[in-house]
C-alpha cells in the first residue's frame, strides 16, 4: 500500500453530553449500548460529559441534551453546549417536552419553595439564598424554547438501540430515522 493512496483518517467525531433537569435515565440508556461503545470510541471521542467529567464544553460535533431547563445553571450549560456544538440533539421526553419535572408547571414556583423550605415548622424558616445555588425558573422549559435544537430522539428513555441508530446516522451523514420498532413502547 503506497502512502499517497491512503485516504487521510477522518478526525474523530467529538460528542458532548449533559443531563439538565432529567433523571439520568437517558444517559443510562445510552450506556446500555454496552460493548458497542468500543466501536463508537474508534470513530468518536467525548468532550464534556458525565463519562469524562470534563466541566466545560469545547468545540464539538454533536451535543446530546437530556432533561429540560429548570434553573439558571441549566440555561448556562445549555447555551455553552449550543455555542460549541455543530449539531444539538434533545434526547428523551424531558428535553423535548419538559417531561416529569414539568409536572410542577401548574404550580407557582414561589408556593413550591415556601412549601418545601419555609413552611417546615421549626426546621427551617427561610428559602435558601446562597448565591452558589442556581435559581429556579418559574417553569421547566423544553430545550427548544431556550436554544435551537437540530434533532429530537423521543422516548422515556429512548432505547439503547434507538440512540445507537440515531448516533450512527448522524455520524455517517444520513438523515436519522427511527423505525416503528424503535418508537414503540408497549
Amino acid at each position: 500500500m503506497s502512502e499517497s493512496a491512503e485516504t487521510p483518517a477522518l478526525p474523530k467525531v467529538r460528542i458532548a453530553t449533559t443531563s439538565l433537569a432529567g433523571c439520568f435515565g437517558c444517559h443510562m440508556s445510552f450506556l446500555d449500548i454496552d460493548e458497542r461503545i468500543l466501536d463508537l470510541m474508534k470513530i468518536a471521542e467525548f468532550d464534556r460529559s458525565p463519562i469524562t467529567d470534563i466541566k466545560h464544553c469545547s468545540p464539538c460535533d454533536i451535543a446530546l441534551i437530556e432533561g429540560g431547563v429548570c434553573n439558571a445553571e441549566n440555561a448556562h450549560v445549555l447555551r455553552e453546549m449550543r455555542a460549541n456544538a455543530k449539531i444539538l440533539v434533545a434526547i428523551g421526553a424531558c428535553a423535548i417536552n419538559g417531561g416529569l419535572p414539568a409536572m410542577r408547571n401548574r404550580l407557582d414556583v414561589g408556593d413550591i419553595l415556601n412549601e418545601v423550605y419555609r413552611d417546615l415548622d421549626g426546621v427551617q424558616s427561610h428559602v435558601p439564598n446562597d448565591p452558589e445555588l442556581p435559581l429556579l425558573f418559574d417553569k421547566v422549559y423544553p430545550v427548544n424554547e431556550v436554544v435551537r435544537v437540530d434533532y429530537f430522539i423521543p422516548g422515556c428513555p429512548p432505547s439503547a438501540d434507538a440512540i445507537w441508530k440515531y448516533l450512527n446516522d448522524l455520524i455517517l451523514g444520513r438523515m436519522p430515522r427511527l423505525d416503528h420498532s424503535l418508537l414503540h413502547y408497549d
Partner: protein
Amino acid sequence: MSDTSEVVLQALERRRAEPTQLLQILREVQEELDWISPETTHSVAAGLGIPATQVESVVQFYSFLYEQPRGRYRILVSDNITDRMLGSLTLFEHMLKRLKLRRAEASADGAVSVDLTSCTGMCDQGPALLVNNRPVTRLTARRVDEICDLVRGDVPLAEWPADYFRVEDNIRRADALLGSRYEPGSGLRAAIALGRQGMLDEMKRSNLRGRGGAGFATAVKWESCRNAPGAERYIVCNADEGEPGTFKDRVLLTSFAERIFEGMAIAGFTVGAANGLLYLRGEYRYLLEPLEAKLESMRRDRRLGASICGAQGFDFDIEIHLGAGAYICGEESALIESLEGKPGKPRIRPPFPVTAGYLGKPTVVNNVETLVEATVVALQGGRIFAGHGTRHSAGTKILSVSGDCARPGIYEYPFGVRVEQVLKDCGAADVVAVQISGPSGICLTPDEFRRHIAFEDVPTAGAFMIFGKERDLFEVARNFTYFFAHESCGFCTPCRVGTTLMRDALDKIADGRGSRYEINELMRLAELLRRTSHCGLGQTAGNPVRDTWLKFRPAYERRLIRGDFDPAVDLDAALTRAREIAGRDDAGAHIGAEQ
C-alpha cells in the same frame, strides 16, 4: 327560575329518553337553564341510564355547551378573518371594556359573558355575533353600545330591536338553481314518474358531484347505499357549514328549504330509505323553527310522511338535529357520531357510511347544495344537467363571496368560471389574494386569477374570501391556524399537538422573536400534518401557512429576527419569582440575553 329536574324531565320526555338524543337533550336543557350544572349532568345521566362521565364528555366536546355558568346573555363574537377585516376585534375589546368583563368570564352578577367563536357564516354582513345562539349582524360601535345597554337593563332578547337579527340572503347572481322557478312537489313527482331505478339512472347521467368539498360522484354514493345489505337506510343532509367563509347553505336553508327536503326525499326514494336527518350547525339555531314549520306544512300536503304524493311505498320523513359549535362535525363520520349523541370524532374508515353509517345502518351523507341539485336533476333530466359546466364538473356552483369587494354575497355560476370573472362581478379592485374553499382550501394570487372554479382546476366547497392590497397575509394565515388549533377534535396526536405547535410558532413570529428555525419547523409540521393526520381537518391545517409562505414570503421575513434563534422565553423574567422568594439580587440571580 326554572326547576332543574323539571326541565330535564321534560327534555328527556320530548326526546324519548334515548341516549342517542343526548346532545339534543343537553342543548334543550341549556336553552332554559343557561348552563349544564353538575346537578343537570347527573339527572340527565340517571334519566338516560348512562354514566355521568359520558354526559361530561359530550358537554366538554362542544363549544356551545357550558360546564360553568356563562351568564343569561352569552355573547360570542364571530372571529373569522372577514369579521376581523371589518373591525370585529376592536368591537370585541370595546364590549369587554364596557361590560367590565374578561374574555369568557361571566360577570359577577351572572348576567353576561363575552367570548370569541369560529366563523358564524355571516361573512357578507359582518361583523357578527351570537347572543344565546341568535345572530346579530352588521355590528358597529353604536350597535355594540346599544347591546351593552340592553344587557345591563336586563331586557329579554325577544324585546331587542328585530333589525339586529336581520339576516339577508344577498343573492347577487342566480343561475340554473337559484334562478329557476320551483313548483312545490314538482321534483318529487318527477322522481316518482321516473321510478327508483330511473331516478338513479338520471343521477348517473347528470355526473352530479358532491358540493360539500370532496366532489364524490353522488350517483355512486346513492347506488352503494342502495346496494348495501340492511333493512333500514338513512339520508343525512349535512348542514354543518363550518368552513370559514362559507354561507351558501345558510341561504338555501333560509329560502330554498322545501327543495332541500324534497331532495332528501328523492334520495330516500332512490336508495330505499324512509328516514332523513338534517344536521344543522348550532350557529343556525335561529333557522330551526322556520324549518320545522316547513316540515309541518310539507307533511300536511303529503310531500313528507307516508305515501308521498300518493305513491304507494314512498314513505319518508325528516328529523332535524342541531350541532353545538364544532367544525369537525361537518366531516361526515364525525357528523354521524354527533347525530348519535356522542362527541364528534371522525370514525376510522372503512367501513364507509354508505355501508355502516348512522346506528351502523347504510347512510347517504350529502351536502345541502348537492341535495337541492338532485331536484334539478329530477326535473331537467341528467343529460341537460350534464350539459352545463365543464367536462368533469357538471352543473353550477354557488359561491359565498366575502372580504374586500363592493358586493359580497351569493353568486351562482356554471362550473368553469374564472376567478377573475367573479372578482369583476363582485366589484373587487386591487386584490392581492383570494382564499378559495376556506382555510382548508387554497390561496390564489393575481397570476392565478385566470384559473377556473372546477374540480379539475380549483375545487371549492363554496368559500371565496377576497383580500385587498392593504391586507397582511401573515395575519390571515395566523387567524386560520388559530381556527384549526381550536377546532382540532383531539383524536389523533399529529393534529392535536401539531396545530397548537404551529399556532405557537406563528405567535412567536408575530411577536418579533421568530427566525428561520420557526419557519423550518412550520414547514416540517405542515408536512407531518398532511401525511399523518386521521382526517381532512389535520391534513389541510398546514395549508394556509404553507401557501402564504410560498406566496407572501416577505410578510413573514420582515417579522423574522436577523439571528438564527431567539428563545421563546425571557429567561431573566422567568427567574423573577424565585428571586423574590429567595430575596436575592446578586449577579448569579440574573441571566443575560445571550452568552
